């Protein structure tokens, strides 16, 4: 009997890394949602997870940093991944600032192995890998902006020229460059695609390296379509070409950016639908509707079958660095700046309403 081992990220421990002094994350096997005010390190957590898991996978498969070119040793791949994903002036800038030389540490644990990473303030990276990581699947990072409009020629330009776009854009364009999977769509992919294509009222096609949305009355170039729809179209194509339906990892930074809140339910369904396929997701959000939709889906799961976790990142007075709180649903979290902002707004709206009624 063929047994496929699906390897999940189970734990991240960071020490003196960017905004964090000491922090630990115990992740759920399905959907992980990070909330927190700006500057609390949510995107840094996603980028670190992506950089480290992809570096380890590329090292383990012998693929090297960029296919068959570039560095092949784990330390070198990790250093290059961190530099190109975070884009610091110098790699040592990722070490939490303090007087004197310091070392940042990160320990990423999968169900089958662990990598321990050390990064000195001089920018030297060393890594120690234990266990078996041969089963690691690909990770896809979706940045806040869509890439369909910049796709034509992006890969070649990024490789040859200085760029302000980080590697997540390059890797995503590489993934989008893959042709559709051969044969008819299986039922799972079809079920994931249907609501997206219904929301778009179009399907996504590629012609001579350019993306188009195919409506009933003809094709429209991706740059002419609303940005929120380009984002949806990008996800649709990643499903069509199999990049988002392997048993890998999805890192999605602020899905709500450019998307109408009406699409939050669809976003939720896509994320949880991919969870059913074995994709482990990591999402950051500032959006009340999206966070609430994700929480609603998380809470609908039977007690004891927890597949989702919510993390609140925040600074506590008197403590160094950013702290982490964890809950099974959104309202388990005491630290919730999204709800706090909503409560504050609602209080002022009610005051204005009462003033109107009294006048």
């Amino acid at each position: 009997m063929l047994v496929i081992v699906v390897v999940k990220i189970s734990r991240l421990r960071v020490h003196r890394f960017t905004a964090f002094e000491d922090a630990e994350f115990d992740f759920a096997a399905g959907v992980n949602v990070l909330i927190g005010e700006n500057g609390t390190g949510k995107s840094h957590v996603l980028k670190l997870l992506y950089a480290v898991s992809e570096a380890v996978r590329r090292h383990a498969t012998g693929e090297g940093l960029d296919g068959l070119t570039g560095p092949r040793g784990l330390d070198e791949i990790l250093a290059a991944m961190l530099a190109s994903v975070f884009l610091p002036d110098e790699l040592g800038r990722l070490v939490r600032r303090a007087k004197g030389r310091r070392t940042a540490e990160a320990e990423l644990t999968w169900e089958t192995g662990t990598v321990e990473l050390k990064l000195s303030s001089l920018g030297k990276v060393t890594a120690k890998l234990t266990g078996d990581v041969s089963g690691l699947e690909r990770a896809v990072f979706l940045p806040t902006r869509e890439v369909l409009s910049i796709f034509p020629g992006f890969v070649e330009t990024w490789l040859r020229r200085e760029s302000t776009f980080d590697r997540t854009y390059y890797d995503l364009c590489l993934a989008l460059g893959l042709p559709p999977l051969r044969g008819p769509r299986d039922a799972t992919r079809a079920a994931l695609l249907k609501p997206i294509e219904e929301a778009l009222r179009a399907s996504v096609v590629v012609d001579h390296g350019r993306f188009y949305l195919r409506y009933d009355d003809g094709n429209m170039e991706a740059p002419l379509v609303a940005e929120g729809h380009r984002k949806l179209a990008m996800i649709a194509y990643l499903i069509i070409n199999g990049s988002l339906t392997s048993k890998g990892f999805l890192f999605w930074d602020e899905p709500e950016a450019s998307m109408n809140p009406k699409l939050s339910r669809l976003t939720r369904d896509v994320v949880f639908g991919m969870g059913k396929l074995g994709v482990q997701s990591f999402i950051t959000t500032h959006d009340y509707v999206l966070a609430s939709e994700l929480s609603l889906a998380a809470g609908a799961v039977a007690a004891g079958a927890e597949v989702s976790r919510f993390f609140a990142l925040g600074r506590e007075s008197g403590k160094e660095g950013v702290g982490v709180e964890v809950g099974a649903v959104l309202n388990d979290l005491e630290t919730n700046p999204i709800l706090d902002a909503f409560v504050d707004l609602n209080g002022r709206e009610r005051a204005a309403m009462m003033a109107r009624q009294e006048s």
Partner: protein
Amino acid sequence: MPPKIFVEGRIEFRFDDACWEVEKWDDHPAFTGSLGIRRINGELTDPVSGKQLPEGTKAVDFVGLSAGELYLFEVKDFRGHAAANAHRQEHELPLEIGLKVRDTIAGLLGAHRMAPSPWLERVAGALCERTRRLHVIAWIVEDTPQARRDRRVHIKTTGVRSDQLQRRLSWCTRKAWADDPLDPSIVLPGVQARTLHA
């Protein structure tokens, strides 16, 4: 069987006896009686001011069982004096209801141990069994705004209150909601509410 009828302020609640086993907890002998949790009411000296500050035991209005699940109901009627309560509501209402839920759970379990009854036995059973849901419902009645933009604020307020209540009560349940019992679109099977006119 006739429905069980309770009056809370200006609102009459009717619980269908076929599907509800409900008691008015803040009038129940297990709460008000000599062995009830209210016996820990008293005063504590504030270490800073030296003043004697009252420490009271709180209670939700109704405790009910339906389809094997436990419901705690708290009723708030803000009609006619919403403005005076506006600031307090925003920050203190979820805390106030949370404290009532805390004391009610303690009171129900204590009474089950010290003054058992068949109803308390079933309530305590529902509380202690993890697979049976505990619902907390804040029934809040306010003057209905007439302007469309004010009705939207009103609807949003209900959602925000539910979120705040869930945040306060996540130590014991995730099933906590704020609702208007007089809104016909809010259906809780076997329960009816109406305003009593003088």
